[in-house]
């Protein structure tokens, strides 16, 4: 048995175990713990496949942020979950198992019947990369070749925040999100919230700046910034902003707005929507990425913070 296999086999088995655990777990808290471990293991697999950008995104968004959202949901549901005593009937459970198995089989068959040499645009994308001035092909695809997808992704992010905010009660509409911070008066968490953010800020900006040429990017960097802000909020060192604050709303749409403006300018300057005039491609991409990072970090943090609950003080 060679080293590669000796390493990949246990990781693969662990991955399947974590996946099975998060499906089979009875309560939502245990399922979430399984899901987070599953995400971390998946990131190791992506690393093994040399897909560092995907690994970073998986750790930051797939495992970290989604895990945090699910943990928050599990905490809110805990009381309700304990009250549910009615279990689905045996027939219903068998039916659900059959439906799930059918989906799994369908996916497996689809994967197995894919053509051996999968259709790929990787070659042309790498060949056209010098025109963007970027060194990281993943970022080139995200910010130039498939810029429209990335732009819409940011719009969806803002819409999701609107969705969370629309769950606010009438009185909370002018208030602040209420973050649960059971450790707010705790010196330990306050110490971390004072020590880590400078490092995190630098690291987040580094991920974005470096993303032009090496693995990283605005989304991964912004997740780090959002985590730092959440840490400060959870330690009780700062209060979540009122959601009616003008600066907050401007910041929440700054990314997509800048992207749209640069895209429209591309119609005149480069002949197509979201096209960059070639000599300035890289600087324009960085110009779009900075406000995008602001939007992503603010929206992600506010998604975790939840809908505003507290009525505004006089």
């Amino acid at each position, binding site marked *: 048995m060679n080293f590669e296999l000796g390493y990949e086999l246990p990781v693969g088995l662990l991955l399947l175990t974590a996946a099975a655990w998060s499906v089979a777990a009875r309560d939502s808290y245990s399922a979430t713990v399984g899901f987070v471990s599953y995400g971390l293991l998946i990131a190791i697999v992506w690393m093994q496949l040399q897909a560092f950008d995907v690994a970073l995104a998986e750790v930051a968004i797939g495992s970290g942020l989604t895990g945090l959202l699910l943990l928050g949901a599990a905490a809110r549901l805990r009381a309700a979950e304990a009250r549910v005593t009615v279990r689905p009937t045996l027939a219903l459970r068998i039916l659900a198992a059959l439906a799930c198995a059918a989906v799994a089989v369908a996916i497996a068959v689809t994967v197995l019947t894919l053509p051996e040499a999968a259709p790929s645009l990787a070659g042309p994308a790498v060949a056209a990369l010098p025109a963007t001035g970027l060194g990281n092909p993943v970022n080139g695809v995200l910010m130039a070749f498939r810029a429209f997808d990335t732009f819409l992704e940011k719009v969806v992010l803002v819409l999701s925040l609107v969705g969370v905010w629309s769950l606010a009660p009438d009185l909370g509409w002018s208030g602040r999100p209420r973050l649960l911070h059971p*450790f707010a008066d705790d010196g330990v*968490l306050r110490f971390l919230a004072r*020590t*880590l953010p400078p*490092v995190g800020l630098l690291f987040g900006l580094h991920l974005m700046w470096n993303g032009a040429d090496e693995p990283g990017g605005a989304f991964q960097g912004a997740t780090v910034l959002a985590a730092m802000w959440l840490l400060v909020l959870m330690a009780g060192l700062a209060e979540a902003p009122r959601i009616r604050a003008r600066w907050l709303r401007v910041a929440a749409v700054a990314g997509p707005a800048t992207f749209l403006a640069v895209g429209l300018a591309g119609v005149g300057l480069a002949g197509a929507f979201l096209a960059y005039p070639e000599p300035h491609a890289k600087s324009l991409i960085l110009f779009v990425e900075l406000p995008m990072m602001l939007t992503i970090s603010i929206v992600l943090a506010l998604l975790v913070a939840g809908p505003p609950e507290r009525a505004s003080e006089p």
Partner: protein
Amino acid sequence: MSALADLFTVVAVSAGVLFFLAGVVGLLRFPDALTRLHALTKADNVGLGLVVLGLLPQAGSFFEALKLLLVWLTVLLAGATVGQLIARVARQAGTRR
């Protein structure tokens, strides 16, 4: 010289892995949350420290070595904080019962 460095790496990383192994055994065998935390934090702090120490001679450049040390320091900071927070919750839950 390089053989000596390799030997150092093997010894230090093996010692680190031993700490992780002991931490996992403790996590599985110890009776309550506080003692389990006690076992785990040793694995995190000393185990990772020894692994990083062992990898230092293999680092390609000074900055790579610095990065390894920085990873260890960050894990120390996070591990110490999270350990304290979990211990606090465990103690509160214990006194409430």
